[in-house]
């Protein structure tokens, strides 16, 4: 079974997304609400996939991606974001997430990502 952690500052978004992942038979090991929690959850569970929001208060997705890459350069990270502004765009490209999916997304895009791990 594919394992994952999901990180988003919107609590409802995390709840609904996790429910959706379960339909796709993805085991959610942890739920986080900022970048710092993302790093901690990753180091704790070493999941197959990290679903990561970008814009979050205090510690954002960039912080999380940077530190997860430090912990494991081959970590499979999927950035799910509403907007990628020009300021963060270059940094994201540098940190090379495996996928960038824009909100609101189609279920098929998540299915494609999960199938890539399977």
């Amino acid at each position, binding site marked *: 079974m594919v394992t994952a952690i999901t990180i988003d500052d*919107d609590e409802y*978004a995390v709840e*609904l997304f996790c*429910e*959706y992942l379960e*339909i796709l038979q993805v085991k959610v090991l942890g739920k986080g609400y900022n970048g710092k929690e993302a790093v901690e959850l990753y180091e704790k569970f070493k999941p197959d996939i990290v679903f990561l929001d970008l814009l979050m208060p205090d510690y954002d997705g960039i912080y999380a991606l940077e530190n997860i890459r430090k912990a494991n350069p081959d970590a499979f990270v999927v950035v799910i974001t509403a*907007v990628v502004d020009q300021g963060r765009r270059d940094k994201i490209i540098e940190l090379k997430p495996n996928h960038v999916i824009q909100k*609101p997304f*189609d279920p098929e895009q998540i299915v494609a990502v999960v199938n890539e791990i399977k």
Partner: protein
Amino acid sequence: MQRKYIHKNEQDDKTSVDPLGYVERRIKFQRQPSDGIIEEEIPQQQTLTAAPKAPEPEEDDVSSKAENIKQVRFANNLKFLQGDSAFPEEKKEFESLGKEFESDKIGQEVSGLLYQFEKQKIAMVQRQIQEEKSLVQELNQKIESNITKFINLESRLKHKQEELEFEVRLKTQKLIESERLAAIGELSSRLAHDLKNPLSVLKIFTDLLRHKTQGESDPAFVRKMDAANAAIFRMTHQIDNVLDFVREAPIERVDTTIHDIIKLAMSRVPLASKINVTVQQQDLPINCDKNKMSVVFTNLLLNAVQAMNGQGSINVAFYKNDSQTVIEFEDSGPGITPEILPKIFDPLFTTKQQGTGLGLATCKNLVGQHGGRILVKNNPTTFSIVLPATNKS
């Protein structure tokens, strides 16, 4: 011998070769053998000193004395002519007159020389005047030419100044516009983030609901689910539209194909079952910003779908030659009225109740970023994207 003084005006002796009057004095010396009288012309000034002042003698004495004098003078003259120096007074007078004669000759020569000199001087002065005249003329011409050049330069300078002022105004306007757009961009970005997150929640919810109600056959429920999804899509598209228009990110060219871009665009466009899309079978490689070109294709497909009011056909054809790649989107819609045709790519121009009026303006901007242009024509309604060939495409 009798000496006769004749008063004569000096001016009479001036010749035509002496117009300036350098010969001030001239004395003629003549011998008249018939009566032995020597006539001597002297200037009037001399007359005053040379005129005899003695009282007139008596007539008999005079005639006899005159005869004596005549004889004596004749003899004296003869002696004088023979070289006798027995009459020193007469000889002195002769020598003096000779000298005057010689000085007259020298005077003539001097006068001639002076005249020649004056003539040359005049000629020289005339030449100098002529040279000066031509120099002045030349100088005037140069001044005129310089003034003309100066006027031309001034005109060019003024023109350049106007051009620069126009450029500054244009750049200032562009700067203000870009600052305004940057502010709008930032605001739009925040709004987009704040709107898309709840939209995403709604979307996941409708997807979950659809999944959980897969067996539901109530047509009214299915229609409501479709309407909710369409509403989410429309809101998302409008937010994207604004973001695509205000964002001025540089293009990032990649090697791709037209089929790839169409596939990406079609995944974003909800197509009703009564809309038939035909894409040319033979694919074509293209070097462009895939994301941006997919935004253009999406907008053109959506525009066609909305124009056809839910039913009709869209035909996508493309070709390329040495200089350009052309992609044509043809639809079976009613066409665009001639009045609105020139405004169709203007920002915020829309004939629809829905929509931002930024879709086609965004297409024009993005195609323009690729160095291309977008054209439209009626019968049938066709939008053509013309992209210049690149080294890679």
